């Protein structure tokens, strides 16, 4: 005979257990129980709570830990020094969907705190479900990038932050002023803008503030960094071997330069590694690109072309019209690369093993291929070691997500390695050989 008290007790503890589990799960980073909203992004509230947990204290005025103060200083624009009010304003704007024409897209839609500060999609989705042509880079650690966008058409974070707002397939306002108008009536914003920049709500400061906020997104604390700083046990033996290969046989450092003073793993330069050349009409697009730019060389036209048309494949060429830039994109940063799949400017490489296959065979031959791309003759074991190293570049705060990615990518790679070409990798067949054979 079960007593009432014990029944209540059981029921109570059961309820408590359920509540606890629910509570823990929603606060975790596992993908299954995160509340999602427009365009697959986690809800803005959820993202902000998670961000609070990831970065509990942010002192905007201090040099983030791990950065050389002289170098850090050089990356803050003169007219946008870091203050707590600017960072707070920028953060509010980053998560604000009113900055999109239909109110469904904020920066955090495609640069989602729960998805590696990107969207983990090949290319991104904007208003009205329109799909763009470029993979969204992560906003983690963007402070040290010298140019923004994968084709480098933006010279600073502040400038870049403004452009998706007026892009017809991203956030969709016709002009920047319209976006400012959309939030001008909010008294909170009026106060924040005054405090931060001493003037009213305006489009230019929207970009400045978001830039200031993004500069605080410093997530450098990877196992690899701890290894560099002296903890020999921080990474596995495989990862250590991968690091050696990275610097030697695999030639990664030619473009993915990594050091304590440049922790990002990018040279900030633009290279054609052949990804764009996989698009069948790439070479005829080059011809069309010149024509379109002749008609209308404005910045907005450049924006539209870059994302809306196939000419996005021409990369940096769209900004510089230098022939040597055709099909060139900025070397991606490697920090936190484990949690930002899929890879390359068009998101066509789903796993890091596919990335290794691409480089192992020397990319894809095309008339503008970077001469530094060579077949590497890496064995399976060496590829695994390099991938182990790459997964060691993720900040400890994302360790769980990183583990999950590693397992998922490994499983996917075990099933299919679509970009692999052993003949090319081991120099049995050479780049350009197929193209010239009659």
């Amino acid at each position, binding site marked *: 005979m079960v007593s009432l008290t014990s029944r209540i007790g059981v029921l109570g503890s059961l309820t408590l257990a359920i509540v606890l589990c629910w509570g823990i799960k929603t606060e975790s980073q596992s993908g299954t129980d995160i509340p999602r909203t427009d365009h697959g992004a986690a809800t803005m509230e959820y993202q902000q709570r998670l961000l609070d947990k990831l970065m509990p204290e942010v002192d905007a005025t201090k040099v983030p830990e791990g950065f050389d103060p002289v170098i850090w200083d050089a990356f803050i624009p003169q007219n946008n020094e870091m203050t707590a009010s600017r960072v707070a304003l920028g953060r509010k704007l980053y998560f604000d969907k009113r900055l999109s024409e239909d109110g469904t897209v904020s920066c955090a839609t495609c640069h989602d705190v729960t998805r590696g500060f990107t969207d983990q999609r090949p290319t991104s989705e904007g208003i009205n479900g329109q799909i763009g042509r470029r993979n969204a880079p992560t906003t983690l650690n963007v402070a040290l990038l010298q140019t923004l966008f994968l084709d480098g058409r933006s010279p600073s974070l502040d400038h870049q932050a403004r452009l998706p707002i007026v892009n017809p397939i991203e956030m969709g306002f016709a002009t920047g002023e319209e976006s400012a108008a959309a939030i001008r009536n909010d008294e909170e914003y009026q106060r924040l803008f005054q405090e931060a920049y001493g003037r009213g709500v305006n489009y230019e400061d929207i970009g400045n503030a978001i830039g200031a906020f993004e500069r605080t997104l410093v997530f450098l604390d990877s196992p690899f960094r701890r290894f560099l700083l002296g903890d020999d046990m921080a990474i596995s033996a495989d990862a250590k071997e991968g690091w050696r290969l990275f610097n030697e046989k695999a030639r990664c450092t*030619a473009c993915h330069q990594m050091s304590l003073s440049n922790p990002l793993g990018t040279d900030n330069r633009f290279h054609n590694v052949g990804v764009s050349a996989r698009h069948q009409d790439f070479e005829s697009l080059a*011809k069309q690109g*010149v*024509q379109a730019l002749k008609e209308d060389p404005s910045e907005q036209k450049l924006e539209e072309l870059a994302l809306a048309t196939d000419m996005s494949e021409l990369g940096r060429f769209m900004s510089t019209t230098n022939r040597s830039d055709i099909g060139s994109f900025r070397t991606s940063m490697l920090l936190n690369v484990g949690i930002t799949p899929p890879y390359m400017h068009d998101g066509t490489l789903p796993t890091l093993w596919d990335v290794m296959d691409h480089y192992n065979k020397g990319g894809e031959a095309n008339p503008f291929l970077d*001469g530094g791309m060579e*077949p590497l003759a890496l064995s399976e074991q060496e590829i695994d070691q390099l991938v182990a190293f790459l997964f060691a570049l993720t900040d400890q705060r994302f360790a769980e997500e990183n583990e999950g990615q590693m397992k998922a990518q490994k499983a996917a790679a075990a099933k299919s390695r679509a970009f692999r070409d052993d003949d090319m990798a081991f120099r049995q067949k050479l780049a350009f050989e197929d193209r010239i*054979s009659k």
Partner: protein
Amino acid sequence: MKPTYKSVETRYMEERKEFFDSLKKLDRRSFVKVSTAALGAVAASGLTPPFSFQPVNVSFRSEAASQANSFRFAYISDSHLYERDLNDRFVRSLMRAVDDVNNLDPQPDFVFYGGDLAQLGQPLELELGAQILKNLKAPLKIMVGEHDWYLDMGEKWKDLFGEPTYSWDHKGVHCVTLLSVVEKDFWTARGMSPMDRMKTVAGLDNSVQSPFTVGAPQREWLKNDLANYSDDTPLIVFSHSPLYKLYKAWNFWTDDAEQVQAILSRFKNVVVIHGHTHQMLTNRIGNIHFHGLLATAWPWPYAPEGMPPLTVEMSRPDPFNPQDGCGDGEVQVHTDGLVDKIYNFWNRNPLTVARAYTASWGQEAIPPKPNRPSY
């Protein structure tokens, strides 16, 4: 045997090949439609025809090539091939150059190969080179470099490519190809084997070898060959060594240059196109305009002395890109015989040394100077 995967790219290449094969089967009307559209786009873009469909950022335009009988040829030079099992990089670079030239639209009148096809003059190296060059769509004219010659004194070369010295006329221009890497015998007295001799010559800074010459027999041949041409016949001389004296220590030198130049002096306009130097190089001596060819294999640094004042040096190649400073190119020949020399650098913007530049002794159409040192 390693397991092979057919990657998406291989499948794409097969589809692409199928596509181009099917293009050939287009009936005339559709073909005209396709090519007119292409031509229209090129014309509208305001680019001059030599650059084909590849859009370029040129610092200035070369003069309109609308004069009758002016023509264009492409060039590839200095590939220094080893057998592909030994060194795949040099082979790949030559293939890239062939691909570049095959992509030119319209195709050039001919392709000129500037010498040093092989690295050590070995039969397999020369055969490999010949095989790769067979893939060129346009007709090939070829020239000897010292690396091709000194293993067997040209036996294999003549087998594959015929006589090293020859001439022909093309659209009113008389073209001559010389064997200008003739060296006085330095090997017999030292009891050198053929490979010893070849390796000595193959070392640019090896001072045991003799300076390059054209030599008396060839100078005689040249005089006779030119005898029936009037002084205002446009003349292009192809030579591996520069036909002037730049830097003896590296054999950037032709020892009987003055005598050769004397034979050419009566002509109004002479252009010398030379290999061997693996760099952007421009010179003018009297009526002779000298232009160097780019290599596909590797770039040379500039000589520490003796640089011709007309040369605008290219900036120092980046060692982290093994193809930087290399490439191929084209020569636009005008009716008066003077040329625009186009350097098609890989991973750099192409650069043109225009006819007006050498014609004006460097006063007009000055090529852009590099923003980085040339060392």
